[in-house]
């Protein structure tokens, strides 16, 4: 058998202190290690009262006294977690328990062990705390965890993930259902990223559109990382889903608002230009005339000047009409979009320009086979065609019969309209950037007003599309409109 000293050494190595209690005399002996722990060299002070008052944390006094009393009087063993004040004045966690007695042994003493469980207790707290933070964060950020087992294909979702997808709590996704939670247009992308991760261990972090349990679309940020076993084989993929639908929707809305604001701003700029240039030039001419009127002596001069007033009035009227035209064209946006057949729109335009077409003997060839209709505001489509067709006829090449070729088609999921002519063309290197500006004319042409293409561009862009131009001088011009 080990003697007390040997036993003490072993216990000390394990950081275990103990009391030996003589059940007959009720005398308590503190082990050396216990004395070291609480820094008490004098064994005489090893009284229960001292322990209760000075060493044991007050929260456990009642419980300890109860248990200890029962141990002595009824030999009832106990097990209690307590906090003890150590020599450095700090409290540490200990498990206090009676040493198991052998069956039927009659002993006159009992041993009470004090096992240091501080680290374990602290780990437990840390784990509880981390779990708390994880839960709170997951709830607050709508972030749920998931795991896919490579071998079985089994899918595991945590509670938050189920909540994100609006699933019942007892719902367990089946392996074959994995892809049905991805929006149709993103399924291929999802499949590829899972495949890459499962086969080559490439992690992913994407923003992707998914479907809830009830099939409504929403945006998710998904991350996935491979899980390896000891042999460095990929055995599964685990990651998180974060519901970013609100953010994404806001982002998209914000971008739309930005685009609208930018477009409005450019229109405002053009208004400022008309007001500053066109309206002001007329008013300044008027003021110049009035000065001259007071200065001129001869009736003949005065009459000449009055003739000019008449011209100014006409010009001013026209400038205001243009301004009005721009405003009305832009307010039409509130009209409802509907399916418009290109052929119908073209017929309306041909009818309204029939005299011009007849006079210039223009030929219009249209091919709408690849795309015969579009969801649009019909007034806009007619106005766009009208401007491009009259432009093409107006700027025809002298001595050449004007031919206009119109076609529609689809490319990369977008709808296109192209209007080509065999007209005089334009030097885009010189005028390209001004092509669609207001009151920009490039030809010494009496009919050039510089407003048609400006309005066309505005209409196309107001509907979310864009317009571009290619041209060769003396050969012809092609306008290409990409609808949204």
């Amino acid at each position: 058998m080990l003697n007390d000293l040997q036993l003490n050494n072993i216990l000390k190595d394990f950081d275990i202190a103990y009391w030996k209690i003589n059940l007959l005399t009720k005398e308590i002996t503190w082990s050396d290690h216990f004395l070291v722990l609480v820094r008490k060299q004098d064994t005489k002070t090893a009284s229960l009262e001292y322990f209760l008052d000075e060493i044991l944390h007050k929260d456990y006094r009642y419980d300890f006294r109860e248990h200890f009393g029962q141990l002595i009087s009824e030999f009832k063993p106990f097990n209690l977690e307590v906090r003890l004040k150590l020599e450095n004045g700090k409290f540490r966690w200990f498990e206090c328990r009676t040493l198991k007695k052998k069956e039927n042994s009659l002993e006159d003493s009992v041993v009470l062990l004090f096992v240091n469980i501080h680290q374990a207790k602290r780990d437990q707290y840390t784990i509880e705390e981390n779990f708390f933070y994880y839960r709170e964060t997951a709830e607050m950020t709508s972030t749920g965890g998931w795991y896919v087992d490579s071998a079985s294909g089994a899918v595991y979702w945590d509670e938050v993930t189920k909540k994100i997808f609006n699933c019942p709590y007892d719902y367990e996704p089946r392996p074959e259902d994995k892809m049905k939670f991805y929006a149709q247009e993103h399924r291929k992308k999802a499949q590829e990223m899972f495949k890459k991760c499962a086969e080559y261990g490439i992690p992913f972090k994407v923003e992707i559109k998914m479907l809830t349990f009830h099939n409504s679309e929403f945006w998710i940020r998904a991350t996935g990382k491979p899980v390896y076993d000891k042999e460095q084989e990929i055995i599964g993929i685990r990651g998180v889903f974060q519901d970013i639908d609100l953010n994404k929707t806001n982002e998209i809305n914000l971008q739309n608002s930005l685009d609208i604001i930018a477009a409005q701003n450019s229109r405002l700029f053009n208004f400022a230009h008309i007001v500053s240039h066109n309206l002001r030039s007329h008013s300044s001419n008027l003021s110049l005339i009035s000065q001259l009127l007071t200065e001129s002596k001869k009736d003949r001069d005065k009459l000449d000047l009055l003739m000019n007033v008449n011209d100014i009035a006409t010009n001013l009227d026209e400038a205001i009409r243009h301004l009005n035209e721009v405003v009305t064209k832009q307010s039409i946006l509130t009209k409802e979009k509907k399916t418009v057949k290109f052929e119908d729109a073209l017929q309306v335009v041909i009818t309204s320009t029939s005299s011009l077409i007849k006079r210039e003997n223009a030929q219009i060839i249209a091919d709408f086979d690849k795309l015969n209709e579009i969801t649009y505001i019909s007034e806009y489509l007619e106005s766009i065609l009208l401007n491009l067709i009259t432009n093409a006829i107006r700027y025809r090449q002298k001595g050449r019969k004007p031919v206009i070729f119109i076609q529609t088609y689809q490319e990369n999921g977008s709808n296109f309209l192209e209007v080509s002519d065999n007209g005089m063309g334009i030097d885009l290197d010189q005028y390209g950037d001004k092509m669609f500006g207001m009151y920009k004319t490039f030809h010494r042409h009496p009919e050039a007003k510089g407003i048609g293409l400006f309005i066309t561009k505005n209409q196309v862009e107001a509907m979310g599309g864009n317009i571009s131009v290619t041209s060769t001088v003396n050969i012809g011009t092609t306008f290409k409109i990409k609808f949204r």
Partner: protein
Amino acid sequence: MEQPIELACIIDDDSIYVNLVKKIIEIKKLSRNLIIFKNGKEALDYFRPILENMNQDKLPDIIFLDLNMPVMDGWEFLGEFFKIKNSFNKKITLYVVSSSIDPRDLERAKSFNMVTDYLIKPIELKKFEKIFDQEVA
């Protein structure tokens, strides 16, 4: 009566404005001769052969240049004119005259060394007389 200047030049597409200035120059006898161009290109087409023949007498003493014009606007004219200006010695006073009150236009015009001033339309009669007086003095 002061001696008027020899040749003034207007580059502007606003025919009403041009006629009015023409009248002012006639009435006030501000210049002996006046040449008028509808845009920058017409003016350049006139200046180029003159410079090739070194016939400086046919160059204007003063130019009133509009900014917004079709075919070639005032800015492009300034750029082109700057390239050929160094080939002659005659002093030419150039005023940019525009109805634009956009401060950016004003800044840009002043960035050209050869631009004497930026005049906003309408120009008062007295201002016209003052400009021509300065030229003679």
